[in-house]
């Protein structure tokens, strides 16, 4: 089970010992290596058959320093992929590549192939505005526009030219708020400012705003870290419902949240993608020691 997950240097002794009667035991030990072991490539199954987003050999630099090292990953259609890892591991940087949010950061350079339904995300002819309509984003802190609840949701469809007539907009606003699980709470005060809502409601408003432009993918960067447990539970429930229609990539510091909402989990460490596996596998029997150490709280 393990020799494949080791780097080349460690695989050799394990193979040698495989012929000896004590192979079983040595294999168990050799798998462990140590938590400081090198990451050579990604273990598990980073690829899938029905990929909505396909990333190959992605490297990201901030000026001289490299934030992402040779990451390859598929995000399947109608799938929730959770990205976990300690602070500074590159998971947010990687997420922000998927709709080119890093373009706005000076000195940021993205290399490698990234494609959405086979179309290059960093292609020369790609206009980032429609790209970001297809790949929406929800941020850590709820950031509603200083506008009415209605206008927060209607803004996107208006500027993207999805709808202009009031009746169409009304429908989109209601639908989006309904899907975000917020409609009943705000239907009587759509003209009130979005900033007047509670934190959890604001975050659901941001999700409604993201889905108002009918995206195909929703990126979420720690969407619940500023919310209380009840608001968090609502968002998690919502993520599960949204999966029917959207592909979702979520960065989270809460491992329990990753375990609850995602089908696949990707573990990042120092800019490298260490392991990608079914969420169940990652949380019960991860392949890599670094994953195990992180999810069980063994980091120093």
């Amino acid at each position, binding site marked *: *089970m*393990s020799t494949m997950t080791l780097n080349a240097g460690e695989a050799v002794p394990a193979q040698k010992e495989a012929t000896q009667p*004590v192979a*079983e*035991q040595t294999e*168990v*030990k050799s*798998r*462990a290596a140590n*938590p400081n072991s090198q990451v050579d490539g990604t273990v598990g199954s980073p690829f899938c058959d029905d990929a909505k987003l396909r990333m190959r050999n992605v490297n990201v630099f901030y000026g001289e320093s490299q934030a992402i090292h040779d990451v390859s990953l598929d995000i399947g259609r109608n799938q929730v992929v959770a990205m976990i890892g300690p602070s500074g591991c590159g998971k947010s940087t990687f997420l922000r590549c998927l709709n080119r949010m890093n373009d706005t950061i000076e000195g940021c350079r993205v290399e490698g192939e990234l494609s959405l339904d086979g179309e290059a995300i960093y292609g020369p002819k790609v206009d980032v505005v429609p790209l970001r309509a297809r790949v929406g984003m929800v941020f850590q802190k709820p950031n509603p526009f200083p506008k009415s609840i209605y206008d927060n949701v209607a803004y996107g469809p208006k500027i993207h030219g999805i709808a202009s007539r009031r009746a169409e907009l009304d429908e989109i606003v209601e639908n989006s708020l309904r899907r975000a699980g917020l409609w009943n709470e705000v239907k009587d005060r759509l003209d009130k400012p979005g900033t007047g809502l509670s934190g959890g409601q604001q975050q659901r408003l941001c999700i409604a705003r993201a889905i108002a432009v009918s995206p195909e993918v929703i990126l979420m960067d720690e969407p619940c870290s500023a919310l209380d447990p009840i608001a968090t539970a609502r968002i998690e429930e919502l993520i599960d419902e949204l999966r029917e229609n959207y592909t979702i990539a979520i960065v989270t510091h809460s*491992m*329990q949240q990753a*375990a609850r909402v995602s089908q696949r989990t990707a573990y990042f460490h120092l800019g490298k993608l260490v392991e990608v596996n079914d969420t169940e596998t990652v*949380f*019960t*029997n*991860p392949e890599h*020691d670094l*994953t*195990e*150490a992180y*999810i*069980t*709280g*063994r*980091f*120093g």
Partner: protein
Amino acid sequence: MEMHFDQHISRQFNEDLESLKTEMLEMGGLVTRQVADAVEALANADSELAEKVLQVEEEIDRCEMEVDEHATLIIAKRQPAASDLRMVMSVIRIARDLERVGDEASKIAKMAIALTDEGTAPRGYTEIRHIANAVRKMLNDALDAYTRFDVKSAMETLAKDEQVDMDYRSAIREMVTYMMEDPRSISRVMNVLWTLRSLERIGDHAKNICEQVVYLVKGADIRHGNEKNMR
């Protein structure tokens, strides 16, 4: 995966897991002693020792409840994952098996009392001795394999259950012959039969413990003949 349960950021978590494991292994020690005492009581017609086994049984029940409670608290407070989770799950399962081994030991002790009351030593003690030695060793080795996270030894111990089952079946045939030869011995031989049955069950529980060693170390559930799950 090398098993380290002492490297958490939280020292309290290290201690909680360590003491959970220790509690279960102490329970294992107690249960192992019970089996030995019960068989001893039977072989030597020692009803005093048999009574002692019945008393200690209550202590084992208490152990199981304590292990369960502590495991539940760890789950509630720490939400263990990966090897930590498997450790907690395996401890809960093993404690359950150990409690049942304790029950079987009590049954044997009751047989010892019944047989002592009847006075004469029935035939069939050789079979009991033989199978008792085998399952006691299995139980010891299984707990030992758990302590050392030793999958290889667990698999070897697990494989011995087949021999125990075979010995059990041939002992049963033997007992049936005795009963046919001498119908007056039926009630006594029945007691021997129940004892053999209890010993055979203890072998099954030892096997279950071995399976939990594999689950803990490898994350593979090989129960119910699913050894193919071991990658």
